[in-house]
């Protein structure tokens, strides 16, 4: 790195000295001239520097691109990501070509038509045909690009397939919380922001029977190969779900749930192999400024084969099972059903001597429901 900085500094310094030196020679030469604008040596130097700098700059651009490319994200691990990446690189090629064509003309003309006292500029105010051409050609190219982009956009933002696996992601200052619809069915329980407290961080509404098997996780587990519908919301301020490897981004807005559906195509293990990096991990980052801890608002993401995912889910206790005190929020008519989840949950993952707490909780729940 240091040598790049040094190189840059040296180039700029040399350039400065060269220009300074030449200029001072030149300014002395015509300091007496009446019209400060009479072009002389300086004009030639500047005219020459334009294409030279462009050439050196292009070389530096190409070199640095090749240097930086290995650090770009690996090939996308989602279905739509493959389409957007392909389109991105094609469009980059098109606009880079346009950039070079126009830049070459700009700098070559600047050099070639530098001031010459023997010549006069050509009076050439307009050429309608030429103008029509370069209005119509970009318009057509744009139209094609819009059409291609629109088709991909339409597919990405289409309604999620009915069988898409639903996962809810909630952003808060400064971490993310995932909620799974549990083992029973693919339905998340409803929520209400007024029910949020220190334990029930996403405000699960226990009057909804779909809530009973909901699972909360601080790591985002995603099944591979099946459509996944992310339901995204925020608790306090704007956040944004960004899964760079999966090419997913969607804002999290308090009061306005958003969504994004995709299909992951590579599991974490496969990515470890592909990138040759045993420490590779998917991640979810926040990309909407949300305050002091914005930069560190990150969630680990694990993409699992579908059967591994189901196996993982089975080991998870539902929120209600972990926090049985919330049973008292359950209406009396659903209490029996809710109890089933807490029991089965504690059976599968016997834990932390919660039994007495459970019984008191259910007792108080009974009284609560009577009120």
């Amino acid at each position, binding site marked *: 790195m240091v040598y790049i900085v040094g190189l840059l500094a040296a180039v700029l310094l040399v350039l400065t000295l060269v220009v300074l030196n030449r200029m001072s020679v030149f300014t002395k030469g015509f300091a007496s001239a009446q019209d*400060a604008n009479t072009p002389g040596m300086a004009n030639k130097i500047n005219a020459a520097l334009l294409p030279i700098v462009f050439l050196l700059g292009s070389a530096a651009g190409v070199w*640095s691109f090749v240097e930086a490319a290995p650090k770009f*994200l690996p090939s996308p691990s989602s279905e739509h990501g493959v389409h957007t*990446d392909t389109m991105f690189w094609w469009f980059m090629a098109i606009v880079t070509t346009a950039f070079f064509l*126009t830049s070459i003309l700009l700098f070559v003309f600047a050099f070639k038509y530098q001031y010459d006292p023997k010549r*006069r*500029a050509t009076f050439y105010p307009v050429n309608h045909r030429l103008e029509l051409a370069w209005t119509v050609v970009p318009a057509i190219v744009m139209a094609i690009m819009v059409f291609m982009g629109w088709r991909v956009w339409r597919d990405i933002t289409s309604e999620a397939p009915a069988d898409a696996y639903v996962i809810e992601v909630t952003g808060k200052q400064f971490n993310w919380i995932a909620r799974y619809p549990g083992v029973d069915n693919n339905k998340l329980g409803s929520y209400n922001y007024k029910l949020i407290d220190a334990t029930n961080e996403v405000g699960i509404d226990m009057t909804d029977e779909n809530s009973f098997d909901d699972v909360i996780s601080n790591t985002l587990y995603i099944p591979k190969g099946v459509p996944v519908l992310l339901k995204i919301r925020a608790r306090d301020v704007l956040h944004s779900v960004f899964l760079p490897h999966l090419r997913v981004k969607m804002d999290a807005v308090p009061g*306005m749930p958003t969504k994004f559906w995709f299909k992951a195509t590579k599991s974490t293990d496969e990515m470890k192999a592909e990138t040759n*990096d045993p420490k590779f991990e998917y991640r979810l980052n926040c990309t909407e400024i949300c305050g002091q801890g914005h930069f560190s608002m990150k969630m680990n993401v694990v993409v699992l084969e579908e059967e591994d995912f189901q196996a993982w889910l089975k080991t998870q206790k539902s929120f209600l099972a972990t926090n049985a005190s919330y049973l008292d929020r359950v209406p009396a008519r659903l209490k029996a059903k809710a109890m089933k989840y807490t029991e089965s949950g504690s059976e599968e993952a016997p834990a932390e001597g919660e039994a007495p707490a459970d019984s008191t909780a259910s007792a108080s729940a009974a009284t609560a429901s009577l009120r």
Partner: protein
Amino acid sequence: MATAALTHDAHDAHEHEHEHHEQNFIQKYVFSEDHKMIAKQYLITGIIWAFIGGLLSILFRLQLGFPDMKLDGLRWLLGEWINPEGKLESEFYLALVTMHGTIMVFFVLTAGLSGTFSNFLIPLQIGARDMASGFLNMLSYWFFLVASIIMLSSLFISTGPAAGGWVIYPPLSAIPTASNGSGMGMSLWLVAMALFIVSQLMGGLNYVTTIINLRTRGLSFSKLPLTIWSFFLTAVLGILSFPVLLSAALLLIFDRNFGTSFYISEIYIGGEALPQQGGSAILFQHLFWFLGHPEVYIVLLPALGITSEVIATNARKPIFGYRAMIGSMLGITLLAFIVWAHHMFVTGMNPFLGSVFMFLTLIIAVPSAVKGFNYITTLWRGNIVFTPAMLFSIGLVSLFIAGGVTGIILGNAALDIQLHDTYFVVAHFHLVMGSASFFGLMAGVYHWFPKMYGRMMNNTLGYIHFWLSFIGVFCVFFPMHYIGIAGFPRRYYSFSTYDMTNSFADLNQFISVAAIITFAAQGIFAFNFFYSIFKGKKSVQNPWRSTTLEWTTPVVVGHGNWEGPIPAVYRWPYDFSKPGAVEDFIPQTVPFSATPESNLPEENEQIALEKTIEELHPYQKEVSAKSGGH
């Protein structure tokens, strides 16, 4: 106000009596109603702001380039914003990027650019003695200055300035407990911006009124220099869009202070659920970007106008496709109002709207491309004189192309999913809007300095300034594309939690060093500018051999601009290198009857009309240049 009185002046030239009244220091330099002085006030305030805004960016570039650097040495300046470990506070980092953006977009490139050149050039290039309302013009500057002082003061309060990004999206900006910067700092931001908008509206109404009403005889819209066209359309953009930002800000003030819920809904923060329900955070974004996108063109169009003028003059050629240039500016102006939601593709907005805005956004590339091609064709077979202004103009075209092409990528909703809010966006808009407009500003300063101060700036220093700036901005912003393609989000204090293995530490270091060099190079400009005001070589009347009206005024322009009657205009502003003409330029004031050797057939027909133009003289509206009016 009497100063605004329009008088139908039927007197002869010698009776115009625009003699120089003795003005005291305060009238002349402080509470001036003279458009030239107000322009200089705007310019110098803008330059000071640019250095402040630039300095803030250097501070956060230090953090990004050298995250392990001990900054204890800056404690005298930043106090507790340097934490006990000698590092920048992460909250203050956000405040820095927020203030950098606000200052650069509004206080430098809007006020500093439009405020300077619209004020300075409109009366001079259309042949008016002053603005339609000198008093309103003065108020416009003073509102701007008060806004500036309030915005600046927010840097010094204990909770720090606004820290929600220059877009100040609620709820972050609406809830004081969400962030330190959302407290007093945000209140000051909103008050400052409200005053700023008032200032811009007064300025804009003045520009439009002046251009419509006070053009000299013979100067039809089809003969206006492109600078004036660009200032005119910029003012229209500002008048139509700034009020929307004002209302957005007002609603935000209500949400912050009076418990309304325009933007906030269903929020749980600081251990409690807020009562507000039913508001929409997205509403603010719509309102903000309804200004925010036209704002891009508010800063860019004047720069393009200035460039058109400078390139034509120094290529010694008429600008290619004068009408197409106007047409494309009109197209950009119109489209600027209907593309705002491309900033919001991933906000959860209806995807159908996303499709519509993608389509409209990519249409705007067409007039932009036309402008680029026209600049290039203007250089073709020219006889180019590389003044510093010309170099900055060519630099602008280059930056406009480099930054513009990536707009085509970002305007594509499907591609924007990945690139939104990454460094790719930062690279794009800093090139196409930030740097390009800044280069336009610089081109304007170098080009019209002789008219402002009657002296020349030093060319050599100008060249050095240009080359360091030109190479510098590319070194700073071009590599950011790579960081963006690699997925790095913007407004991140540190990338240690983003991606530990590929943190682009080298590249970020390079960018920071380049930024420091580029910033330092602006010191050369500052020296050149202030030194030349007092010690620069005396200018001649028309140093660049240009055609427009301002170069027919005396070298040191007095109050009222022209000593005799205001000259009439007979031709368009781009008669450079006309075949048959003696000189390689014919000023707008030269009638076709005086140039039979170079007239085109249709121009010979216009000789007959010259009488009509002269007959208009007694009816020409003139704003009084005397402070008390006639």
